[in-house]
């Protein structure tokens, strides 16, 4: 499993500055990867470009044994004419019912299946949305703030569960939580601030998993490394 970008460039039409400027990086093996960087640096843009093979770009994106790349984000909504649970059922492929039940428990949504999507709180909406994606066939799933508005405790147990349940899939996690990306991700693509002329670095994270021992010291070092890069 392998995602590689070589000399990627992208400029929005009508814009003068390139959002992605000669970017090269490579992410290997299943597990949680991250894209990290200041607001407005181009994380979402990069994610969309990777997920949408139809975009006209300058440069190469090479994906190896990854046929299906899905992009999810935190402003998505479920249709409103049925309860959220019903909509979930409708998009659950045959054979994945058990997985669905398990995810609902992990995501603590059991009591909310009868609610309409518009009646959910923001964090509940984001969780409901993410479950849908996890039930689909994918090789790489990009989570663009998909766990926004979820409390840290629950977020941690969700991330750990995903890592366990989908051990052979790749995830790209986009979040502004420094500690979280350092702790859970194996590779972190850090965008430096353009204004400070910092480039783009790939930093190795702690890749914490359930029942593993977390080395607090190493975590601090990773966090420091990232802080320096950005």
């Amino acid at each position, binding site marked *: 499993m392998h995602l590689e970008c070589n000399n990627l460039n992208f400029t929005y039409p009508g814009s003068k500055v390139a959002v992605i400027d000669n970017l090269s990086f490579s992410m290997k093996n299943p597990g949680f990867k991250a894209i990290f960087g200041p607001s407005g640096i181009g994380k979402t843009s990069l994610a969309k470009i990777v*997920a949408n093979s139809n975009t006209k770009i300058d440069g190469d994106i090479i994906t190896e044994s990854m046929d299906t790349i*899905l*992009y*999810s*984000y935190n*402003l*998505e*909504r*479920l*249709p*409103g*004419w049925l309860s959220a649970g019903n909509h979930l059922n409708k*998009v659950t492929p045959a054979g994945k019912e058990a997985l669905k039940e398990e995810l609902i428990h992990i995501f603590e949504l059991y009591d909310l299946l009868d609610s*309409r999507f*518009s*009646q959910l709180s923001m964090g509940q909406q984001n969780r409901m*949305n993410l479950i*849908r*994606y996890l039930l*689909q066939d994918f090789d790489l799933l990009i989570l663009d703030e998909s766990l926004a508005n979820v409390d840290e405790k629950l977020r941690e147990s969700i991330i750990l569960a995903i890592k366990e349940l989908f051990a052979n899939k790749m995830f790209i996690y986009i979040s502004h939580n420094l500690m979280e990306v350092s702790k859970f991700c194996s590779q972190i693509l850090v965008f430096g601030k353009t204004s400070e002329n910092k480039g783009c670095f790939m930093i190795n994270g702690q890749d914490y998993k359930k029942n593993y021992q977390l080395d607090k010291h190493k975590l601090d070092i990773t966090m420091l490394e990232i802080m320096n890069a950005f």
Partner: protein
Amino acid sequence: MLFKRIYQFLIVYTISILFLLMIKMVLSLSDYVIPGVPLIIETAGQVFKTYFFDVMNTLSITVLGQFMSIIMAFTVGIAGRKSSWIGSFIKVTAYNIQAYPIVALAPIIFILLGDGFISRLLIASMICYFPLLLSVLGIMATPVEDVEHFYIVTGQMRWQLEVKIRAFENLSKLTTVISGSATLAMAGTIVAEFIAANAGIGYSIRIALYQSDLAKILIALFVIGIIISMYQGVLETIGEQIKTKWSVSNQGEVI
């Protein structure tokens, strides 16, 4: 709600009549140009009952015609929502037919379908459907990105789902247009009767026009107005109920 509508209609009607009478007075026009109050009342006595049943007759066709035109508008609107060749072809057809005033198409319709019930219904729904179509097209052609994204990227998007999503997100616009189109269906039916039927208020209007009897026309307008107000009130109530049943978004806006 319903009473408010009727009440408001009565105000509008009274103002219009007063306005006409004022003109009659100012220009001192005779009764045969603009009928005076006694003549209007006398005429009302003669024709009110007949006209009432005529309008009820018309209303029955209106309901059917509106139903048909909703189906037609959705069929064409859904088929024509894509910017593909066939989509735009359907749109061009639908638009062009609409540009033709029904009076020009009527002879062809009669040749093809005879002058029975079907022709009358077809003409009524052709007049009513196009405005609906425009709204349906506008709504159906506008993606709802944040809801559709998931289904598109996971390859689960069917046209039925797309239509459902867009309709649901624009439910209040659709119910406004549909309940509003009742008046168009009524107007369409009356025109259809005017040129095609031997019953209904449109037919009576044709006769009154032939006799140049403005008093009768004023009575007809009155009966039409009252009954359309009632019909529309009913439709709006149904629309509200569909909205609250299908969605619960209203409840969401309590705070």
